[in-house]
């Protein structure tokens, strides 16, 4: 069993929105047709995006921390959006676990978007069908691309490599190791959706320093006055020299 997914490292994400724009660019140029983008420079812009970067502030001033949070379809292993679809347009591919919408079957009833707790499905106002992250299914199997380019557009765009892509069911894959060793977690575990995408938490490198470690109590150079000069017959450190 293969389950392709993204692992997003919140410790590294700088919130530059490069993944958002590259996602939009790739998916509006694909064979499935453009993604709506109305009044992009007007008063009330709106459009369809598969990926968003949001920003949260954790803590209270002065102990605050800014968390940039990229959000796209999590390709749940038990996706609640799939069984509710009345036409079967919303489906999970058995071969690689990608959750997709068949635009030719979708009737645009929006029920699947109600059934997604993460709000990652967006109806396209012009195509009138439900759209969502495809995990760049049209890239990752494209043999005309070199192997290192067979990754989702957002992953390739990330300047800090905060986004990892791979098979989370393969225990030795880069993503599985990242989840296992860096504390990868799933969003809203309370609903049992088992998201395939994981997030890596913010990590702090801290040193525990005791007060007496700040001053070296036995530093001989700090001793005031002349160093004691033992007799020539007294034992010294190497029994050769003397102070």
């Amino acid at each position: 069993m293969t389950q392709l997914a993204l692992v997003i490292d919140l410790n590294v994400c700088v919130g530059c929105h490069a993944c958002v724009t590259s996602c939009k660019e790739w998916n509006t140029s694909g064979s499935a047709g453009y993604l709506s983008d109305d009044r992009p420079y007007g008063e009330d812009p709106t459009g369809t995006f598969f990926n968003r970067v949001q920003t949260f502030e954790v803590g209270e001033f002065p102990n605050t921390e800014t968390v940039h949070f990229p959000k796209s379809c999590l390709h749940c292993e038990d996706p609640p959006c799939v069984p509710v679809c009345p036409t079967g347009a919303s489906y999970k591919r058995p071969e690689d676990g990608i959750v997709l919408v068949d635009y030719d079957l979708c009737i645009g009833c929006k029920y699947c978007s109600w059934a997604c707790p993460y709000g990652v499905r967006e109806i396209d106002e012009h195509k009138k069908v439900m759209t969502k992250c495809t995990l760049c299914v049209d890239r990752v199997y494209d043999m005309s691309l070199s192997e290192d380019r067979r990754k989702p557009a957002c992953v390739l765009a990330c300047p800090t490599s905060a986004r990892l892509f791979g098979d989370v069911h393969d225990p030795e894959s880069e993503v599985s190791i990242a989840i296992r060793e860096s504390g990868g977690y799933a969003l809203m575990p309370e609903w049992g959706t088992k998201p395939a995408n994981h997030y890596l938490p913010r990590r702090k490198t801290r040193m525990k320093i005791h007060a007496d470690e700040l001053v070296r109590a036995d530093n001989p150079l700090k001793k005031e006055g002349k160093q004691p000069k033992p007799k020539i017959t007294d034992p010294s450190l190497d029994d050769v020299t003397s102070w």
Partner: protein
Amino acid sequence: MHPAFSVIFLTTLIGAGQGLFLALYTAQSYAALELLPGQDARFYVYGSAIAFALLTAGLVASFFHLGHPERAWRSATRWRTSWLSREVIVLPAMMGAVFVYGLAHWLGWDLGIFGIKTSVPGDLTLVIGTGGVLFAFALFLCTGMIYACIKFLQEWASWLTVVNYTLFGAASGFLLATAYAAYMAPGLVKFYAAWTVIITTAVFVTRIASLIRNARLKPKSTIQTAIGVRHSRVEQKSQGFMGGSFNTREFFHGVRPLFFKSIKWAFLILVFPLPLFLLWAGLSLHAHGLEHSAYVFTAAFAVQYVGLLAERWFFFAQSNHPQNLYYQTIS
């Protein structure tokens, strides 16, 4: 959630249609047991026609909800998993049963299938009507479960949702039947009025129960579980875009809190006390043999229908989708 008027009209119209059919069938089965005076075929034919018209109007309203109505037929395919698909199958089946039921009365097909000897000739329509009743209840179940099965919409995820949909539809249908009987079969007015009072009181209890339940709900998802950061103070600073999106339009009701609250009180008054008062007024007029009672009953149904529209609006607006946690601040 943002209340969709197509769905509000769909659920209220088919609810009234199902309820009216249940009322017609109840009167016929009582008549078969000689508990009520039998009615001539016209009563059932016109009644079925009204119920069919309501169901059709609901079906038409539902198409306005779809982005691709021309593909609506496809939605009957996933009945194994989707309550919406099940509703798409049961609604036309219910319409068919109502149509055949009315047709059998119209053409006078008084075939005796079981040979039960009653004051009503034949029992074919009773058998067809049984199917219609089953479809009516199945349709109430499907409609309610569409909402109740989404577990993270906690305001909906309760058996009370199904019960309320059933009882609201039945109350509305029996009230319509009272008005209809005032025109067509004065002998049934009291019977229907009594059932209207019983069902309306029952749904008052269950709807208040669901309001109390919803007021006490603790959301299972929080901003902490939404982004996975465990800190008592997490605040959104940006949702990632300055304009609107599907996420900001579809899942927020977008009205002021005062308006939201006033809709609750509006439906509590328009659905329960006001129609019951008009029902009582109509009954007193009816007792004095005044023909105006029919108008009063019709007004009672109209008032309650408007109240049910408000109730359905509130039902949608009150539910809080967990995705809203991600859209708290524009920037």
